[in-house]
């Protein structure tokens, strides 16, 4: 290398200039810190990129063009519902629930909400528009939290498919979405008088340690990643990986009679979060709701005489089913029990995930019910 090209350190390193840059950077970081929690609301979705048809969720971002994050503002900001003003002639239906609603292994247009949207054009003289706000976590409290956010979008009807696996008390708060949004649930508790056991609130120091720029760096990086992934979502319409082959839901079952460690009806009844259904009612107020006991795989394989599937021993599921019906009947709420409506060969990789055909069978029942109970009601 010529001498003229030699690295001149004195020229390259200007300590004053560098110190100035560091100070400016620190000032910017301190200045934006209070704003950071609401950064999730800023989104390129529905502006440059198409809004997502389901809430963001996914593990392999480079293939699914999706990711799991726990910032509800960002999750909703990326959803198509955030970009659609409700029209006067629109009948808006929001479907919440678990992975079965979200549509694991299903394309966005094969899910229950999409099929209802296709099959039901008019309700109460208005044009029907259905939104998928399912999220692949089994917890009723998670559904309550999501619905509290979704109320901002003025639904005319809420559809809530649920299953026993979402009911155990220990499932209510032990998932990342809830754990990262405890403060929001506490404020909902206060506002609506919900019954949710969240334990002691964190001290100010704990809150600071959890919410500063350093400890939340992954969350902020995910916000940026979500925006980039919006380009691929818009370009491909893909939001999950569709493997060519996958393990089918188990048909041959273990001989265990336990459900979440419970062996008796009494124990089970005392540990199911039926209160979450009341919480939901408080959140949605007078908005009509249809609660669905969603389809499950009814096995005919090994030990099918004591278990329905991988999740449920028969005694536990039957007890839950009876209690759920009684609970909802007592309150006079719309209830649709579709637990055995789908043939066992139409389940995919889990006892609650359906194939496109299974989803069609399921949605037809739901559409009929909506037409009969809601749309022609008046």
């Amino acid at each position: 290398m010529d001498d003229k090209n030699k690295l001149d350190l004195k020229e390259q390193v200007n300590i004053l200039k560098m110190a100035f840059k560091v100070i400016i950077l620190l000032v910017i970081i301190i200045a934006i810190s209070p704003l950071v929690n609401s950064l999730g609301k800023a989104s390129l979705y529905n502006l440059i990129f198409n809004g997502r048809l389901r809430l963001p969720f996914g593990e392999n971002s480079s293939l699914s063009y999706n990711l799991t994050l726990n910032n509800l503002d960002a999750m909703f900001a990326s959803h198509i519902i955030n970009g659609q003003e409700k029209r006067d002639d629109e009948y808006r239906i929001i479907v919440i629930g678990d992975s079965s609603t979200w549509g694991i292994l299903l394309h966005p247009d094969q899910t229950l909400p999409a099929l209802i949207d296709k099959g039901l054009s008019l309700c109460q003289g208005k044009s029907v528009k259905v939104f998928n706000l399912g999220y692949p976590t089994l917890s009723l409290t998670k559904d309550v939290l999501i619905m509290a956010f979704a109320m901002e979008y003025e639904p005319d009807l809420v559809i809530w498919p649920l299953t026993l696996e979402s009911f155990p008390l220990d499932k209510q708060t032990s998932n990342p979405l809830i754990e990262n949004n405890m403060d929001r649930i506490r404020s909902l508790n206060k506002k609506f008088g919900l019954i949710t056991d969240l334990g002691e609130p964190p001290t100010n120091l704990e809150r600071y340690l959890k919410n500063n720029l350093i400890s939340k760096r992954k969350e902020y990086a995910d916000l940026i990643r979500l925006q980039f992934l919006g380009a691929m979502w818009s370009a491909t319409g893909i939001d999950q990986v569709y493997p060519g082959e996958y393990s089918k839901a188990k048909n041959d079952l273990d001989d265990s009679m336990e459900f979440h460690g419970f062996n008796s009806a009494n124990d089970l009844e005392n540990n199911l979060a039926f209160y979450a259904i009341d919480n939901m009612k408080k959140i949605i107020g007078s908005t009509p709701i249809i609660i669905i006991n969603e389809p499950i795989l009814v096995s005919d394989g090994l030990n099918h005489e004591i278990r329905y599937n991988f999740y449920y021993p028969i005694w536990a599921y039957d007890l839950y089913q009876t209690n759920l019906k009684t609970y909802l009947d007592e309150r006079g709420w719309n209830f649709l029990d579709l637990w055995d409506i789908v043939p066992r060969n139409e389940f995919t990789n889990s006892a609650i995930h359906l194939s496109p055909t299974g989803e069609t069978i399921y949605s037809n029942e739901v559409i009929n019910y909506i037409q009969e109970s809601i749309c022609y009601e008046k």
Partner: protein
Amino acid sequence: MVGSIKKPSYKKNLIFFLNLVVLLVLQPNLPIRNLRFWLPSVIIIITIVSWIIIRDKVRFNTLSIVKPISAIAATYLLLIIVTKFGIFNNLYNQLKIINLLIFFGILFLLITLNLITANGSRANYWIFVIIILFVFLKTPQLSLMISKGLRTITDQSVELATHLDISWLGFSYIAFRLIHTLREHEKGALPDVDLVEYFNYVTFFPTMVAGPIDRFDHFQKSFQNPDNHHNMRIIYSGQRISIGLFKKFVVADLLSLIALNEVNASQIHSSIWMWISVYAYAFLIFFDFSGYTDIAIGMACLLGIEIPENFSHPYAKKNLTLFWNSWHMTLTQFFRTYYFNPLARYLRTGKRKWSVWLIILTTQISTMVLIGFWHGIIINFVLWGLWHGIGLFIQNRWSNSLGASIEKKFTSKLSNLLINGVNIFLTFNFVSVGWVFFVLPNVQSSISVLKVLVGAG
């Protein structure tokens, strides 16, 4: 800090040790048994044999080779011991002592053979051996053949063999440095060098994986320079490493989410989104590669060694020649020095008279195809090389003169600015479209992407 060591011999020996450890430890685990040991060990053998070929025969003494080889043996021993303690997990857990004996046996045999055989030049033969090794590594079918052979030797399943079984860390760049020193030796332009210094140049760990490819004389001079600005060097290194890390792990990693790749090439059907993914790849490869370079330059600077820049705003250049003068500059210089210039000279001065345009066409296309081959011997890299070779030829023959006549017509500052902007835009787009062949594994998918780009997909 190694960079602050005043005594050159201490610094040299310490860097020798660091290079050796990094070479042996960084080689990733491979499915073929003991290959993790053998690949870096073969690099050590090739480097020592290369040094014997280029050594100063007058000043050579046995001790100058015994000492470094003893240090190598001690390093192996050290790594075997630390592996037993769970450090460098699985490094040499499975290694049997027979492998080490074979390694030192081969080394001894090759050293003896090279020392006792006639004094005639063996550099060119050795270059040929290195190139053959290179061809085997870069050709998927040949790599697969080697993998099958090695699996047979190690009694492993031949059915599971793939060409990826032979992932030889750093060999591409190490081969360039070996060829450079061997060629310079042939020309009589290589300064005197001892084995430790030579080993340090060839396997210098900051530049082992992704360059830049320094020239030996420059590296040696930088090594011997006293460090007069130690504190500033640390700050400068910190700056370069931080910038490199940001480019690589923030910018490039984000761009990788939307950049063109084998999977999304068939999923994108809209022209606009395809252009976006192609542009994203263009910036991804720049930030990824130049980020590595920044880290390498920063790390070398920490060690008190100055290595050359590899990028100089390549996407802001107004023609393809300028692009190649600022993209992976040390690689371009290598090919210019050891292939393009000698070939052009040969064609100009040979017995058969070649027309100028044919000389330019031949040299430019064959150089670019060769650079393509360096990335891998598959048809898509040939197409990528052809794309750039033809582009350089067209620019050289026509667009330069066309550009000059346009510039003559429009002399105002604004029009010049506009012309420059258009040139930069065209060059960037030409390069970006070229990346389609580079990033995709086969012709069919490349053509599909090109069709979508022009709205015919």
